[in-house]
């Protein structure tokens, strides 16, 4: 998926077009092509599936999110990459679920922009905001670099994220950049540090970054015992104790 040439998305799109033109025979080609275009995932200590299945993100959006989370959370000595942590899966599930659909969000008009101190005022659910924001970011990337976000170089991605986070990029006719960025950033953090039952923080590798013990939380004796000392632990999540 990080391939600059033909990637899984191109192939899958082509497969649909192709299947309309010449049904039959394409399935076998597809299998072969996917196998070629998609090298096996790097050996991670993961029980994770090799490719994420998505319930909300379309192909362009999936490519955007995968590129985004791997740029923001690169594989290094601290942790696996964003996709190996499952942050993309977390985001997909969050957008498809109640939160993404606007659960607990007051959605009655009239709609006014208001001041920043009045908080979220868009007539969009989080999922709709995400969709519009990715489209606008990709439009910006195509205009500036001639390619969508997932196909530009790391330095260019960095430039785009700085532009989004500082408001230097402006979505003409789209949602306010600062609102999109705040939502995007928050969900990346959630995918890194929420309990693994939500699809991110795979193998509790997010918690391991900071030494957070997860749900181990009977510290009555630990308060004295580990005062000023590191607490040696392998983090546990909800499913480990269910």
């Amino acid at each position, binding site marked *: 998926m990080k391939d600059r040439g033909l990637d899984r998305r191109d192939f899958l799109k082509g497969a649909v077009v192709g299947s309309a033109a010449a049904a039959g025979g394409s399935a076998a080609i597809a299998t072969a092509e996917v196998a070629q275009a998609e090298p096996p995932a790097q050996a991670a200590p993961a029980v994770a599936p090799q490719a994420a299945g998505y319930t909300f993100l379309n192909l362009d959006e999936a490519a955007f999110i995968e590129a985004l989370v791997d740029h923001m959370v690169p594989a290094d000595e601290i942790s696996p990459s964003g996709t190996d942590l499952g942050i993309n899966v977390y985001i997909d599930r969050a957008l498809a679920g109640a939160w993404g659909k606007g659960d607990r*969000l007051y959605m009655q008009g009239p709609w006014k922009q208001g001041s920043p101190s*009045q908080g979220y005022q868009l007539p969009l659910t989080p999922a709709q905001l995400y969709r519009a924001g990715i489209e606008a970011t990709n439009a910006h990337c195509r205009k500036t670099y001639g390619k969508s976000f997932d196909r530009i170089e790391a330095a260019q991605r960095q430039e785009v994220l700085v532009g989004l986070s500082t408001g230097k990029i402006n979505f003409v006719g789209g949602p306010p950049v600062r609102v999109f960025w705040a939502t995007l950033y928050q969900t990346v953090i959630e995918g890194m540090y929420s309990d693994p039952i939500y699809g991110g923080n795979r193998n509790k590798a997010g918690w391991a970054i*900071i030494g957070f013990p997860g749900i181990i939380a009977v510290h009555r004796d630990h308060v004295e015992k580990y005062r000023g000392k590191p607490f040696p632990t392998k983090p546990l999540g909800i499913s480990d104790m269910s």
Partner: protein
Amino acid sequence: MTTKLGEVDVVIVGLGWTGGILAKELTEAGLKVVALERGAPRSSENDYSLPNIRDELRYVVRHDLMQNTARDTITVRNNPKQEALPMRRLGSFLPGEVVGGSGVHWSGHTWRWTDMEFKIRSNYEERYGRKFIPDDMTIQDWGITYAELEPYYDKFEYTAAVSGKAGNIAGQILAGGNPFEAPRVRDYPLPPLTPILASEMFTNAARNAGYHPFPRPSANASQPYTNPDGAQFGGCQYCGYCQRFGCEANAKGSPHMTVIPIAMRNPNFELRTHSWVTKVLKDSDGKRVTGVTYTNVLNGEEFEQPATIVLLCAYAINNVHLMLLSGIGTPYDPVDQKGVVGKNYCYQTGASATLFFEGKYFNPFMNAGGSNATIDDFNINWTFDRAPHNFVGGYNVSGGFNTPLPIGYRPVPSGTPQWGSEWKRATAKWYQTAMVINASGSVMANRHNCFDLDPTYRNAFGQPLMRMTFDYQSNEHRMGVHAAGVVNEIAKSMNPTKLNPATARTEPWTVVPYQSTHNTGGTIMGTNPRDSVLNKYLQSWDCHNLFVVGANAFPHNSSYNPTGPVGALAYWTADAIKNRYVKNPGPLVQA
């Protein structure tokens, strides 16, 4: 079609701390009580148990125990010139919406507010002269005294298992406690929690600077405890999942495991959950209320519940909303400053520093709701002269952690990138080696800060949302400058490797991010009906069989968490109803 039910002695709207206390006390006095709670029934055993309660995303980020703003919210603006817009999701504050209310998800900080608040205008005028108080600062005396409330503070502390160290028993100042506290008749029911390293370091630094640190009193049982009503508490496990969560150990004093189950065992009591009260009904002459209307939100059925006494015990903001929706009392107009309902909405302010100590392990995840240490030298200390700093009110300063869970709390030094390997390294390095010093400051009433009904937006029941007009004033800015100075002075004396210093707040109040669920005022108590909605027993001046119980009654906000006086006032009101009102219904204070 509305079904009219049989009359009961008392109907309670909202079953959190205040409703729970009144339900228990009044059913024990033989009254037939019905409580209407808009939220769902939840219990420690079934809902707040391990492992599912340890879910930061569900409880902190997604607000599982909180009011659902899709159904009812408020509109907000900073000043009357602005157009108010709906708070479309929760942020700055988090009212609870379950049986137990916000008493389920609070962190347990329990303070005794003193005559420094209850006689605020008299105190400042006497010491500094009338001109010291700005013209638009509408602070006023509360009409109650600390001495009157002391037994009720005591009762609440023993009910809720408050752990702490007394600083003043009957005038004798005790080492290690808060020397500025007003005299108490006896100590807390439980000794303080075990201090964490961060609070110990803060304590030493504050003491070296000449201040008077003490362990923050908190309804986190420092050891197993049985309260005077027989409710059983486990000892606090320092789990770090306190604020925003129900307590699986039953170590956090909460209404759903103390007063409410006791009321539930009494045949005089009936709880109806999923019951949304839309209006308080007035008698034809407007001198009494006759009951309430409510909707069963499981099926849309509407009911009228007649009652001899109506107690509004919802969250402070929702009590005020119900008063405005029901047309009881004269709504406050900030332009001509006439009317009272909606007046003196107040909030809180603060200033916070993060201290980074390379190689020092604080283990922030080992933490109780109240394991911080605090100083009150700039708060209820009347020897602190406000004149040179030109502000009314005060602030307390504490060291430790609030909710140190990783989605919300990953401190890094200023200037650290927001993503990438360098960010990850900084997060890994500092999560366990940082601590926080925080000042929590009072907010004085101001003529422009108020509630009324919004002209445009409506809730799921077709009723106008309540409109909040609020911003900080120059008094709070001046206090913030002083508070940031003290926080930074203590922080620097601790020689951190790096410091994100505290700064005084200058920007307007915003609905994001979370700040404090300490919203006060709107139906304030006072000495006369011209400038207050309630008398000192939280009884409506307009309708004597209506009591409005909660922080909505506070004429201004102090730097302290409000639950201490909220609980004490609920017991005080219960006594006034049991011992006086029932025998001779009518105004308990002559207007």
